[in-house]
């Protein structure tokens, strides 16, 4: 026989497709600049508006628990961040140890004429590198034009929480057609 003897569908007759609209009609590649700072003062000294630096710091602080690596034991945390940096914490998922925030990253995205800031908490590791919320990116900051990103990301960030700077950068080319099957 040239066909399967049985076949079934599990989801198709019931799956609802709830998709939220958030198109962005602009068409140039987004430009992102990011820099890390230990303090708000360092941030303003570097030429950023005071208000943005303060907002970035506050937002990073608010995300400090979510953005930190979580360890089962104090020793595990100390191995990465040093003896004075690790504190006990607990949340709905249970108790853990995590490093203290030592700085924040300020990112500015120029996207289709509008400018957006975002920030993330940073944690200085024993080796001097900063740990960021999505994985281990270099803490010295990075900048990027349309030619690409200077940090070498890999899929190790998959599944972790990130800070979404914008949406709507895919799919614009097809808006007029509504489908691309071949």
């Amino acid at each position, binding site marked *: 026989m040239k066909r399967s003897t049985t076949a079934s*569908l599990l989801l198709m007759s019931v799956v609802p497709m709830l*998709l939220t609209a958030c198109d*962005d009609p602009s068409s140039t590649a987004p430009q992102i600049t990011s820099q890390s700072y230990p303090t708000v003062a360092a941030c303003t000294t570097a030429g950023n508006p005071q208000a943005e630096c303060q907002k970035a710091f506050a937002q990073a602080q608010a995300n400090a628990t979510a953005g930190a690596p979580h360890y089962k034991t104090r020793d595990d945390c100390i191995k990465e961040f040093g003896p004075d940096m690790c504190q006990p914490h607990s949340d709905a998922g249970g108790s853990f140890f995590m490093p203290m925030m030592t700085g924040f990253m300020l990112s500015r995205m120029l996207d289709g004429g509008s400018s957006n800031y975002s920030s993330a908490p940073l944690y200085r590791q024993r080796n001097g590198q900063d740990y960021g919320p999505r994985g281990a990116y270099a803490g010295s900051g990075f900048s990027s034009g349309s030619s690409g*990103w200077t940090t070498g990301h890999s899929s190790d960030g998959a599944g972790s929480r990130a800070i979404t700077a914008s949406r709507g950068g895919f799919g614009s080319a097809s808006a007029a057609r509504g489908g691309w099957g071949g």
Partner: protein
Amino acid sequence: MASGQLLRLVADGAAEPVRRVAIAPRPDWKETAHANGFHFHTIDGAPYWDESAYYEFSLEQIERDIEAPTGELHEMAMSLVSEILTSESLLTKLAIPRSHWDWIAESWHARHPHLYGRMDLAYDGTGPAKLYELNYDTPTSLYEAAWFQWVWLEEQKKRGHVPPRADQYNLIQELLVESFGTIAKRLPRPFYFSAVRDSAEDQGTIAYLRDCATQAGIDSGLIAIEDIGLSTTGTFTDLDSIVIGTLFKLYPLEMLTEDRYGSALPGSGLQLIEPAWKAVLSNKGILPLLWERATGHPNLLPSFFDESPTSALPRGWVRKPLFSREGANVTMALPNGESIVSDGPYTDSPMIKQAYHPLPKFDDGYPLIGSWVIADRPAGMGIREDSGLITQDTSRFIPHLIV
């Protein structure tokens, strides 16, 4: 039994043509479609799923003329990937953007798995099938071929409207589920299926593929391609700002790289299905390369890169853009001097030219065979029939059977 053997001898010896057989549609087929999640059976008011007829093949025709050549052509195409990826001149000829060469090559070296492809064949039963093109990135008509066509045959057999021994060339879903199971371990999570929001057809197709993945035990999500986010660190995120690991995208690779976020793809760590390296196969430039390597192959049509795409096309040739989908921007210069042109957005694309080899005509329709390859294995077929020689998104899907 004896008459069956006789028919086979006739088919082998005298090259019996394929048959188009009229049949009454199931009176309840629309309800069945609805119950099976098939919501795009009618597109823009015109029927797309059409079961007022079926195409009938012999087992020899399927195995000798469709299945075997599909496997062979697929291997020939796959054997070109590595060579293309290491050749600047070939990448340039295929109009692959230089900014993404390394990214594409890395996806090949990392062996990012691919899932499926569909090759389009012209075949009427009296000669070898001829390859029109490979749809190796965003092939559609999958659900219709793999699922609804299968259901159609089961029901028509039960109701006694087709011969009881009727079979179908269709292991598509079985191999999809099996392949998802095989590649599952190599896919970074979370795993999302994505297509443009407003295409009922594309959304239906990814819902079906997700169903197959679920049957293989893989958890996955759905996200509109327009909703994907870009994070401050250059990763792609879902609506909860979780970094996406693997994205199944029913959206052309060349559009993805041209989109505003395209420049972020190489550094993002995002794994794609179909993988980036499919860019060199889902490209009509593969046709002249295949012809160059295997000139005279019975399943290939003479094909060349068109060095003067704005000049008049000689009689007996068809001009196609490298990246055209759904039959857009195709020009045919018929041997009798007539020409047929289809509209489309691919006007500034590099072109190939392919020898004119018209689709066969049955009644009022021109059937094009979509022969499916699932993870390197010939898997089944679906037939789309158009009222003209160029199969476009206005075509209708007609089921087939084997007797």
